[in-house]
């Protein structure tokens, strides 16, 4: 199952000792494509495996990750038609059936492979700082009408030094994904089948060029990982880390970007091209403004008209004068009427 996670901007991906992230070769863990050195067949290897047997020629093979950046790609397995259907179904669902395919005009649908930097390895290090414990203390103090209870927050700091070792898995987008609707998306690589990225593929597929350099990605990763190892609520004063078996690689993930027009606005939807689920979508919002005015204005009008009909234009004139004085500029009466009616009864999408 593929996952692109929506999370707070600036918060990279999963880390910590999630057993599924430990790198242990469990079934269903991510796999990587490789070529048998004996017969040239295509094989798959689980992350962390050092040796494997070719299922075609039975040769025993040793696998190593050489130093340097590797590049992987996940092939799209969802067709354009399926992506379009998923987006339109999502739209109908989010708008309660009010906006369907026939209400929209699809402008653009394209498949693009989006790069992420991923860093994994074993983090070992030391962190020193202060653990902050906050307590609410109630004390009784004399007051003008006898005693009263006052709450005060007390802070206690206790220094700590801890040594940590944990498997980490961190990722960040390698280019600006704002327009793709993927800001703050992180990549979970487990249970996915990655293939070696061949730049020759770029003749036939669209890829987004990584703009963030490897050095910048590494720095950002280490900066995040240092905060990860600290106890929550603590102040870190100093730390030192080593990342063992560091693997910094680029992963290309497939997404469909669909743009459609509804009314006079353009909306975009991003669909995961590995499993077809909608990652993010802008949908036309129903403007709820004016629903109370829809009842209050007719009720007041009916009351005034029922009491004495000329009260209605008198009240309208008073409201007009009030609006003009508040705006500080003259407004033509017909424009004012349209604006007021629009503010009261201008619902819809």
């Amino acid at each position, binding site marked *: 199952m593929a996952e692109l996670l929506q999370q707070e901007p600036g918060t990279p991906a999963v880390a910590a000792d999630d057993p599924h992230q*430990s790198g242990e070769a469990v079934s269903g863990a991510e796999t990587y494509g490789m070529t048998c050195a004996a017969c040239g067949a295509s094989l798959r290897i689980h992350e962390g495996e050092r040796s494997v047997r070719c299922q075609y020629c039975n040769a*025993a093979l040793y696998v190593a990750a050489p130093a340097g950046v590797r590049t992987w790609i996940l092939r799209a397995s969802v067709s354009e038609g399926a992506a379009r259907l998923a987006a339109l179904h999502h739209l109908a669902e989010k708008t309660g059936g009010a906006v369907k395919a026939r209400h929209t005009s699809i402008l653009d649908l394209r498949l693009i492979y989006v790069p992420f930097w991923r860093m994994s390895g074993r983090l070992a290090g030391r962190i020193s700082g202060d653990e902050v414990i906050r307590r609410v203390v109630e004390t009784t103090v004399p007051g003008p009408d006898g005693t009263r209870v006052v709450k005060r927050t007390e802070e206690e700091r206790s220094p700590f030094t801890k040594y940590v070792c944990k498997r980490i898995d961190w990722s960040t987008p390698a280019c600006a994904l704002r327009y793709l609707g993927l800001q703050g998306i992180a990549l979970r690589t487990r249970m996915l089948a990655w293939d070696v990225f061949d730049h020759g593929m770029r003749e036939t597929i669209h890829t987004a060029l990584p703009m963030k350099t490897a050095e910048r990605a590494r720095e950002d990763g280490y900066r995040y990982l240092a905060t990860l190892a600290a106890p929550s609520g603590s102040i870190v004063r100093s730390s030192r880390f080593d990342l063992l078996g560091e693997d910094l690689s680029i992963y290309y993930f497939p997404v469909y970007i669909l743009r459609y027009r509804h009314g006079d606005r353009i909306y975009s939807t991003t669909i995961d091209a590995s499993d077809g689920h909608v990652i993010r979508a802008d949908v036309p919002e129903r403007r709820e403004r004016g629903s109370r005015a829809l009842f209050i204005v007719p009720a007041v009008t009916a009351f005034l008209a029922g009491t004495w009909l000329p009260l209605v234009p008198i009240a309208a004139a008073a409201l007009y004068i009030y609006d003009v004085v508040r705006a500080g500029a003259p407004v033509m009466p017909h424009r004012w009427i349209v604006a007021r009616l629009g503010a009261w009864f201008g619902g819809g999408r």
Partner: protein
Amino acid sequence: MSMKTDGLTVQRLQCQHCGAELPVMGRSIVFRCAACRRLWAASGEHLGPVRVDRAVIPSGPAPGDILHLPFWVAEIDLPRLESDVSKIMNSLRHTQVRLAEAALVPDDREPDPLTELGLNLIGIETPPSGAQRIVPGAAIALPPSAELDFFLRTIADQGIFRVFVPAFDSPGEQVRLSVGRLMTHRRPELRTAPSDGAGRTAVPVIQAAEALILARYIFFSTFPASIGSCAALIDRLEVQYAAEPLLVEFPFVPHGGEVESLVGGFHIPARTIGALAEETASS
């Protein structure tokens, strides 16, 4: 022949001595040639010779069901350690005096965690924190000299100080430090013989170079709190080793949900142990 692409490096898994095919072992970094009995360990993109020993079981009848867990054993260069600590402490004391003489105004601001980090990471050089910045109150927190001297003397009196780094696979990595610290504290006698690989053995998944880095943190975690929390000293101390690390299989006996070390005399939960050595069916 090896295949090299933008991805992984793949080569035939062969004994570098006799050419026989080595067994496929999943995540294990050590391979034993069935033909010539030589041992090979993963070392980056290639295989290099390695020696694997097995700890002799202490006197008494050997229990039936023994599980061997691999540890890297690194011997600290004690004379060098003492000399390095002495140099660093002199330097820090000198800096402390200079800061006191300058009568600097204490900085009461909360330290920004990011600027406080002394990251020393592979490929990136960052000066350690400590002496080069102003700390509220005392300029640099140093351990009491008497306590530090006593600690160093205690280590030196032992003659040999070994750090034990668990090399077996584990679902949680923190066990590498906790079990390593436990074993290091116990200071088991090291009587070994070359391992024949017989019986149940957990696969080693940590390479020698990685073990030496982990050994450093395990070693520091055995220090008394007053010394181990002194970042200014710890971050500057580059631990040197007297020899190449040894890979040693230690005997453990399962007891219900735990395994007991026959040489260390401690228990660890059985769930902390990952895969055992056998040719993996998936390959």
